[in-house]
C-alpha cells in the first residue's frame, strides 16, 4: 500500500499524517488503479459492503427492542412489527437483507469462479472470502433462530444435532452448544450474543479481504495482468465509485421490491408460529441460501457421513486455487471450463431445489447424483480439465480488446 507517496497540503494535515497516515490511506483508496474493463459482475464487492453495513445498522436498532428469552422473543418481534416506529421496515430490511446479502455473495463467488479470480496471486483473497462466507452462514443461521418460531426452533435442533455425529465427544459438544439437554432459553441467549458478535469478525475479515485485494489489484474479465497502468487502469474514484453506485441503486430497487411488496416470500410461513418443542413441523427446511448444503447433508444415510460431506463441500472450495492448475484465469479463453462452469451452476441450483423437498424417491436420487457431481467437479473434473484443456489465445493487453470494440 506504500507504493505512492502522499503529502498533505496543510501543516496540520502533514503533522497528523506523519503520526497516523489516514490521509495517505484515503488517497490510496481514491487513486487505487482499477482495470478499466471491469464489467458489472465486479460491482458486487461494493454491494456486499453495503449489505454488511445495512445489516449491522438495522441489527443495532432491532437489538434495542428485541428480548432474547424463550418466552418473550416471539412477541418482542411482533412488538417491533406493530408498535415500534417503522419497526416493520427495519425488521423487513434486516430479514430480507440477509437473503440479498447471500444473493450478492453467490454472484460474487461465481464471478470469481468464472473469471478465475481465485488464481495466483489472489489465493489469500479467495480464502479470506471463503472464511467470510462461512461466518455469514453461521451468523445467518443464528439470526434465523432469534424470532423463536417453529422453523427457528427446529432448524436449530437439526443443525446443532449435527455435532452429535462427531465420534466420542459429539454428545458432550452438543450439550455444551445448547447449554442444556435440548434447544432452550440458554441456546437462544447465546445465539443472540454470537449473532451480534460475528458481524464484527466479518467486518474484520472484509478489511483483510480488501487489503489483500489492494496488493495485486483487481482481476478483470480477460484475466490478464495490467501491463501499463496509465493505459489499462482508471482511478477508483470517481470512475469505479460511480459505477458501483449505479449498480447498487439497481440492486436496491430489487431489494425494495422484496421489502415493500413481498417481505415474507423468502421466509417460511411456519416461522410465524411460536416455537413449540412438542410439535415437530412436517418438513424442516433451512432458509433458501443454505438449501444446497442441506441437500448434501441429507444425501447420505449416515449422519456422520452427511456432516463430513457438508463441511467438506465448503472446505474443498478453499483448496480451489490448487485444484485448478490452468495458467489462464478467465473462462472466456477456457472453452471447456466454461461448459463445466454452467453445469456446476445447474447442479448447485438443482441441489438447492431438492434441498427444499422431502428427502425421498426421485428427490433423494437427484440429491445423491448432485452431491457426487459437486465433489467430482472440484476433485476430478477441474484438475484433469486444467491440464488437458486447449485454451484460446490471450489478448496482448487490457486496452487491446477494448480498442477493437468487443
Amino acid at each position, binding site marked *: 500500500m506504500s507504493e505512492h507517496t502522499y503529502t498533505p497540503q496543510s501543516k496540520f494535515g502533514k503533522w497528523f499524517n506523519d503520526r497516523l497516515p489516514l490521509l495517505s490511506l484515503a488517497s490510496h483508496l481514491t487513486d487505487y488503479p482499477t482495470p478499466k474493463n471491469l464489467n458489472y459482475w465486479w460491482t458486487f464487492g461494493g454491494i456486499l459492503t453495503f449489505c454488511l453495513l445495512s445489516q449491522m445498522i438495522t441489527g443495532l436498532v432491532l437489538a434495542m427492542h428485541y428480548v432474547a428469552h424463550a418466552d418473550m422473543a416471539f412477541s418482542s418481534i411482533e412488538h417491533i412489527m406493530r408498535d415500534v416506529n417503522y419497526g416493520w421496515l427495519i425488521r423487513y430490511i434486516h430479514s430480507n437483507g440477509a437473503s440479498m446479502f447471500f444473493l450478492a455473495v453467490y454472484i460474487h463467488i461465481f464471478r470469481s469462479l468464472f473469471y478465475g479470480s481465485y488464481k495466483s496471486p489472489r489465493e489469500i483473497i479467495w480464502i479470506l472470502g471463503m472464511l467470510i462466507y462461512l461466518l455469514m452462514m453461521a451468523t445467518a443461521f443464528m439470526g434465523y433462530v432469534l424470532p423463536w418460531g417453529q422453523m427457528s426452533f427446529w432448524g436449530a435442533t437439526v443443525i446443532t444435532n449435527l455435532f452429535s455425529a462427531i465420534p466420542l465427544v459429539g454428545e458432550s459438544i452438543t450439550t455444551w452448544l445448547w447449554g442444556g439437554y435440548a434447544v432452550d432459553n440458554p441456546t437462544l441467549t447465546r445465539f443472540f450474543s454470537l449473532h451480534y458478535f460475528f458481524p464484527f469478525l466479518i467486518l474484520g475479515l472484509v478489511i483483510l479481504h480488501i487489503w489483500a485485494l489492494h496488493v495485486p489489484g483487481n482481476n478483470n474479465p480477460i484475466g490478464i495482468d495490467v501491463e501499463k497502468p496509465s493505459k489499462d487502469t482508471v482511478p477508483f474514484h470517481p470512475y469505479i465509485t*460511480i459505477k458501483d453506485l449505479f449498480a447498487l441503486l439497481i440492486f436496491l430497487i430489487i431489494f425494495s421490491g422484496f421489502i*415493500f411488496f413481498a417481505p415474507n416470500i423468502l421466509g417460511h*410461513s411456519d416461522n*410465524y408460529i411460536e416455537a413449540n418443542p412438542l410439535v415437530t413441523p412436517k418438513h424442516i427446511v433451512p432458509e433458501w441460501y443454505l438449501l444446497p448444503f442441506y441437500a448434501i447433508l441429507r444425501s447420505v444415510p449416515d449422519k456422520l457421513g452427511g456432516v463430513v460431506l457438508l463441511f467438506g463441500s465448503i472446505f474443498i472450495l478453499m483448496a480451489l486455487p490448487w485444484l485448478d492448475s490452468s495458467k489462464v484465469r478467465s473462462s472466456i479463453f477456457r472453452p471447456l471450463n466454461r461448459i463445466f462452469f*454452467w453445469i456446476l451452476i445447474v447442479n448447485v441450483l438443482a441441489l438447492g431445489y431438492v434441498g427444499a423437498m422431502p428427502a425421498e424417491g426421485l428427490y433423494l436420487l437427484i440429491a445423491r447424483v448432485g452431491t457426487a457431481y459437486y465433489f467430482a467437479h472440484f476433485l476430478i473434473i477441474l484438475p484433469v480439465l486444467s491440464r488437458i484443456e486447449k485454451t484460446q489465445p490471450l489478448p496482448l493487453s487490457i486496452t487491446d480488446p477494448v480498442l477493437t470494440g468487443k
Partner: protein
Amino acid sequence: MFKSNKIYIKILLFFFILINSSVSEEIKIPEHDWSFKGITGKFDRSSLQRGYQVYTEVCSSCHSMSLLSYRNLGEKGGPEFSVEQVKAIAANFEVIDGPNNDGEMFTRPGRPSDKFVSPYPNVQAAMAANGGAYPPDMSVLVKARKGGADYIYSVLTGYTEPPTNFDLEEGVYYNRYMEGNKIKMSNPLSDDLVSYSDGTKATEAQMAKDVTTFLTWAAEPHLEARHKLGFKVIIFLIILSILVYFSMRRLWLRIDSKE
C-alpha cells in the same frame, strides 16, 4: 459471455419443469382477488369493520388474538373505528387487573390500551375445551399459513360432505382445503349468523371474505403504509439511478474518448 450460454439456461428450465411436474400432489388453494393484493393494495375499510364483527361474535369464543390491542382498531390503515367507538368496544370486555393496594386482583371494563381479551386463561384450558385441539391464536395466523389469505378463506368456505368412503372420527369434520381433509373445527359460518349494521347481506362467503380481510390486517397492520412508502422509495430509486447512469456515462466519456 452469457449469450452463448442460453442453451444451458434452457436445459435448466426443462430440468426444473420435469421434476416439478413429476412429484406434486398438494391440495391446490384457489386464488382470490383481494383489495390488499398488489403494489397499490389497500384494505376495504368497511370489510375490515364487518370482519371485526365476525371475529368478536364468532371466532373469538375459541380463538385468542393476544398480540392486538383495542387501540389498534382505531389506528390508521386498520378498521379505523372512531376514538369513541374504540372506547366503547374496549369497555365491553372485562379485563383482569391488579393487584390493588389490598393485594387483590380485580376486574374492570377494558380500555383501548388493553390487549384483546383471550377466551381461555391458558393453552391447556383451550385444548381441554376443544377436544384436545388448540384453536390457534389468530394474531399472525394469515402469515403463519402457506397461501395466506387465500388459504384462510378456502378453509372457511371448504366444508363439504365427505366422499362416501371417507373415514371421519368423532368430532372431526371434512374440509376440502385442510391438509388431509380433516379439521377439528366444525363449520363456523352459516348464512345470517351475524347481522351487519351497514346492510350488507351476511352470506357465508361474505363473512368469510370480511373476516379474512380482518385477519390479514391483524397479521400485517402496517400493510398500507408499507405499500405507500414502497411506491415512493422505488420511484425515487429509479429517478436517482437514471441520473447516476447519465453522470456515469459522461464521466466515462473522458476515458473512452482517449482511445
